[in-house]
């Protein structure tokens, strides 16, 4: 393989493929300021709806905020804070995960929202200048943590883009990278096939149990899932049942054996293919991946979506040629050629592999060019049961 990776090694041994400066508001009332800084500079920012409430979902929110702020693609994180104990705990934990450059801008010390903006913007600009001076160095394949995602699936997803992504994922796992399949909703009905590929029987059991736990939490609510899965868009595209969608979605994970199962937003401990328990909700999944230290995501779509993460480059692969042509600014690669008969699965898989490497090495994705920086906190609202 002639391709090789370059990136930015971090002090804790992880590697970034971007050198982002993130503005992270720790209270929803500070989000407008964060967004404004990202509009006025090359810094990235998130917004969220957490206002400091400590409830049953706090542990999950805490894990996501800390992991996200410490994603290895980040050169520096600027925290906008009220200085409450909960917020300061988030900052401390982000540092202990591995965030090395950070600045705290505390609005209750400054006393003015306008000054908060001015000071944080100035900090962002000086970090951006420093980040620009850092040179890429050659890094090993094990530094690549790939997230596998799909959204707006159609009937071709399981035939073109997903299995082609599976080819690329297998190639990377073979080279020693990490690859993570998410979306518990979308392996329901295919979990037996994934469990059969577990390296260790316990991992197989965990895959089955994770899906069963999910199923119990939905049944517990007494809800008919078919209103949401397959979604209306999926059904229009020809997908009939959740199992059918899952059988196609699981193809993103290729045919490599499963090394382990991860809880939402937990990092992979060593190279290999993993399954992570995430919602199917595109942004909650992408946010959980970023919080787990994943540094590149490939997102297959039959319908097209602008979705991107503030910190993780997200490569969009179209499942059909029609969509790739009609909304080109959302799409990086077209796998529809497999259905058209002009390219083979293997060929498109290699194209995706090459695109992953190129993007890791600095090529900007459509979502990055469009500055799409979505973020969503995943809450259970008390519906998590074990």
């Amino acid at each position, binding site marked *: 393989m002639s391709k090789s990776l370059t990136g930015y090694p971090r002090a804790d041994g992880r590697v970034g493929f971007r050198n982002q400066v993130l503005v992270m508001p720790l209270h*929803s009332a500070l989000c407008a300021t964060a967004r404004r800084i990202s509009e006025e500079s090359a810094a990235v920012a998130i917004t969220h709806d957490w*206002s400091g409430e400590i*409830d049953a979902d706090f542990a999950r929110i805490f894990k996501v905020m800390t992991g996200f702020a410490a994603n290895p693609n980040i050169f520096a994180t600027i925290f906008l804070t009220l200085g409450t104990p909960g917020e300061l705990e988030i900052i401390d934990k982000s540092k202990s995960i591995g965030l090395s450059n950070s600045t705290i801008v505390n609005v209750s010390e400054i006393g003015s929202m306008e000054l908060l903006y001015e000071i944080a913007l100035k900090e962002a600009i000086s970090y951006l200048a420093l980040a620009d001076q850092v040179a890429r160095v050659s890094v090993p394949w094990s530094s690549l943590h790939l997230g596998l995602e799909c959204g707006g699936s159609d009937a071709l997803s399981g035939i073109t883009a997903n299995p082609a992504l599976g080819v690329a994922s297998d190639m990377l796992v073979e080279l020693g990278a990490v690859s993570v399949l998410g979306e518990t909703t979308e392996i329901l009905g295919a979990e037996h096939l994934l469990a059969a590929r577990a390296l260790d029987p316990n991992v197989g059991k965990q895959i089955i149990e994770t899906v069963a736990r999910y199923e119990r939490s939905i049944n517990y609510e007494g809800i008919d*899932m078919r209103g949401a899965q397959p*979604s209306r868009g999926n059904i229009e595209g020809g997908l009939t049942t959740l199992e059918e969608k899952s059988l196609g979605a699981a193809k993103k994970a290729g045919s490599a054996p499963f090394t382990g199962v991860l809880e939402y937003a937990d990092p992979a401990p060593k190279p290999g293919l993993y399954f992570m328990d995430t919602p199917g*909700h595109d942004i909650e999944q992408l946010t959980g991946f970023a919080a787990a230290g994943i540094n590149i995501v490939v997102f297959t779509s039959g319908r097209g979506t602008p979705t991107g993460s503030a910190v993780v480059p997200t490569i969009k692969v179209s499942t059909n040629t029609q969509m790739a042509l009609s909304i080109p600014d959302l799409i990086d690669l077209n796998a529809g050629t497999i259905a058209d008969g002009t390219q083979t699965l293997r060929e498109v898989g290699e194209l995706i592999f090459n695109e992953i490497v190129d993007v890791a090495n600095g090529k900007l994705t459509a979502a990055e060019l469009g500055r799409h920086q979505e973020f*969503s906190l995943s809450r259970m609202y008390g*519906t998590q049961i074990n």
Partner: protein
Amino acid sequence: MKRQGFDRALRGVGIRDYQLILPSVVCSTRIASRIANEVGSKTFAHQHGCGIIGNDVEGISDFFCDLAKHPNVGTVLIVGLGCETIQGNELAAKVKESNPTTSYLVIQESGGVAGTFNDGITAAKLLKSTYPPHLKNLDELVVGVEFSNSNSEIESLIAELKASGIKFEIADQNKNPGLNFSELMRRGVHLIVSFTEPNQPPSGFPLIPTINIASDSALHSALAKEFDLPNGSTSSAILNFILDVADGKETKSELSKAGEIIAPRVVRSV
């Protein structure tokens, strides 16, 4: 009290004339924000619209309808993605039942981001020119009162509102002030008086002028100049401020751009 507002026919009379760019799903919040910035309309980010099940489907859809129904809102442009749970065309049909000055756009049918941006600007401008605002007497001002702990100031303000013939609604049940604001929005209040919780910063709801009143907490003392009214403001000072805001005076939260709103949910995303 003869006060002019904006005629919203069956939706009442508003004290502000906002055009709302309503993203019907988290995926379209960025593009909605770009359109709103370009044409000078109101929008906000939120995390809803897809991956929802059970009662949340109707709940979130009704929440969006209530946003569009609010009397401070003039015309509405709904921006959807296309494949989400709450479909733009159905939401638009439902919204139009109460606010007919609504149109909608779908990213997946508008040629992507650039296409949606251009179509969105055209559609938003067309809505504004087709439905210019008309003034009408505002017969009844409705004030929302948000607080976490009752105190004597709040009680005397409520007494004063009653005496002045001003209708009021109270929201005090949610831990997250954003949920209190959302609840008051659904009850159609024209403006909100927030007795900001001591450990919360001043904030507001994008479509509703919000008057933040400081407490004596350390946080509020530090952020004193971000509040509309200081700790210890008398109920008559608050009432005068309310009347000024109803007449067009802008609150601090109105001057800053709104970030993200929160809608009530009951079930996890799937």
